[in-house]
């Protein structure tokens, strides 16, 4: 299957390891990944902050870039939710945009959905000998309805010990511009999430969204908690031979953490 990757602007700029992991994972499963070069940003930040017109222009751009794709895979629950849940609210009923969105949105998937529902796999052949907790991010949980898919994928990973996170369904407090507009409340929420994460005794906290992880991870790091965050794609891409997070061996130079050799 030919899969169009929408990397998202945050992953593209700040978390390229996640993108490399998605590519490696999907190719390992025998699929071709393409990266439509015109892609930039889904417009979520603009939309959620109340800037509807720029968000609409970015939606138009997204649709133009991806309309020919059989399937669009997004390693970010909230960006996938932006496209599937919020794009339909952008165009006026019957407009060109709304017609095109109606056609494209059902083919847009969060990575974990795509693996379980479209490719029909839960065991992706990964190896990750670490104790891991999973944080279900709000948009993945409530807008996309990811349900137990991420857990099923993680449980099938060899060597991985999955532990339960208390208060899992509670928001971590990131919320995009909320994190700076209401920094104190955001931090208070994040502090509780980080505390629950540390209390699991896990080494790694994972999620389907790097923006939430950037927030929780930023707190864990500030606390010198000794716990680290990882996008679920990086866990699912790890193999005994290939190492875990980070690029495959042949594209090594940017490797930041080679964790599981």
């Amino acid at each position, binding site marked *: 299957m030919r899969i169009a990757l929408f*990397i998202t*602007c945050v*992953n*593209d*700029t*700040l*978390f*390229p*390891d996640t*993108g490399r992991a998605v590519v490696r994972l999907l190719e390992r499963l025998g699929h071709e990944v393409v*990266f439509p*070069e*015109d*892609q*930039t*940003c889904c*417009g979520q*930040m*603009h*939309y*959620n*902050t*109340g*800037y509807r017109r*720029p968000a609409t*222009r*970015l939606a138009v*751009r997204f649709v133009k870039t991806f309309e020919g794709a059989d399937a669009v895979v997004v390693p970010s629950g909230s960006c996938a939710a932006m496209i599937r849940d919020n794009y339909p609210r952008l165009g006026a009923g019957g407009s060109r945009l709304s017609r095109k969105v109606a056609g494209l949105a059902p083919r847009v998937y969060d990575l974990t959905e795509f693996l379980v529902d479209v490719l029909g796999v839960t065991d992706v052949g990964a190896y990750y000998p670490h104790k891991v907790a999973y944080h279900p991010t*709000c*948009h993945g949980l*409530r807008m996309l309805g990811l349900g137990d898919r991420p857990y099923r994928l993680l449980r099938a990973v060899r060597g991985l010990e999955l532990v339960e996170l208390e208060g899992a369904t509670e*928001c971590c*407090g*990131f*919320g*995009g*511009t*909320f*994190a*700076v*507009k*209401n*920094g*104190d*409340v*955001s*931090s208070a*929420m*994040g502090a509780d999430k980080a505390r629950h994460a540390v209390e699991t005794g896990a080494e790694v906290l994972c999620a389907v969204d790097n923006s939430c992880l*950037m*927030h929780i*991870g*930023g*707190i864990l*790091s*500030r606390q010198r908690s000794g716990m680290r965050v990882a996008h679920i794609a990086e866990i699912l891409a790890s193999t005994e031979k290939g190492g875990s997070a980070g*690029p495959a061996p042949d*594209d090594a130079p*940017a490797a*930041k953490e080679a964790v599981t050799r």
Partner: protein
Amino acid sequence: MSATFLGIPPFPEAARAAVDDSRTRHNLRRATHTIRDKRASVVGELNDDWQLLRAEGAAVKEHTLRHLDRYLEQLEESVTRAGGRVHWAADAEEANAIVTRLVKATGETDVVKVKSMATQEIELNNALAEAGITAYETDLAELIVQLGDDLPSHILVPAIHLGRAQIREIFLDQMAEWGTPAPPGLTDDPRALAEAARLHLRERFLRTRTAISGANFAVADSGTLVVLESEGNGRMCLTLPQTLISVVGIEKIVPTWSDLEVFMQLLPRSSTGERMNPYTSTWTGVTPGDGPQEFHLVLLDNGRTDVLADTVGRQALRCIRCSACLNTCPVYERTGGHAYGSVYPGPIGAILTPQLRGMSSAVDEALPYASSLCGACYEVCPVAIDIPEVLVHLREEVSAGRGHLGEKALMAGAEAVFSSSRALGAAQRAAGLGRNLVPGHLPGTAGEWTDTRDVPDVPAESFRSWWNKRGKGQR
């Protein structure tokens, strides 16, 4: 009687103080989690039926709001036919004037009150006080707030921010000022506190001849008013006095008596986490020889017709004030209700207050942002109000206004970067080059991030740059 929400700063500032208040944080965490869990268990036992009920509740409310003009006239007719009198109040001032006039006509200077959001909204107690009339709150939590000269911080449990030790102190200090004093050896045992309140109130119920209430529902076809409560104190007020005055928002209508079936299931489970409501009082006009012999219904607009005109925002008027959204909200749990600067706190307050008040102040403009858009409120709302959708909609209204220049510039800058993959690539290369220059503590708004969180390392190379190189290597 001086407590008022006026003067509370905009949400981010009010919240800053609130998150530092360890006592309130502790009380709120306990209370919201208890009621949240209780709700989840009684909603869970209905399985799929819950979603059907929820859809039905939303549909009934939506239909009523669409035809509100018709149902309001029908309600007026039925109430009048049953011996009640209907008054129309365009705003708080008018409503307060009507109620004050009606109370004065009875010759009384004391009234008992059933807990009511509408009368809180119009600050009726303050208006009555100015006219020399004392309103006595009879709901336990509302009584605590009144005795403590405090402000309500929750729709259902106005004193949720207080712990029982604080309540004991308030009772000991203040009850004597208002009537029957607290027993001298009062402990903070919840039963002892409830007993003290019971003794304090009982005497009041027997003496007072005029009562003021709100209503959870007003049935258009029969003219019946409905109040749900848990203590029985409301029923005392609704049955013992001679005169009853009910102040009710125009959105509280349901078309028919049988529509109540849906809400009698939705409301208790969502609000107190009970299968059935303990005290449900209904009355239709006046009944000779039984209950109040004079009944006035004051129908309150106070901004509601303006809300109706907004096709996205008007779903907020479906609200049945169950408070499930407050109890589940992670923001509310950490700030409490006062930070919202209105009698309607939490997620519903964040969408209702600015709409009712017409986005008229910095407090109103900050409210739509008092949410991480996590969607937990929408998930639990028994009438399926898409609160995140309305929050975003109201943010659009704020950002379209004057001001917010810094943010507008930032958003325009971001759009410019995202307007082409070339621009984005260039920005990424610049970020990559400057990656070691990012300080651990950033100035200005960005400092809101770095005050409590480390910033991630900026990678030397973006994904797209890696992809392009890889492509060249492979092909």
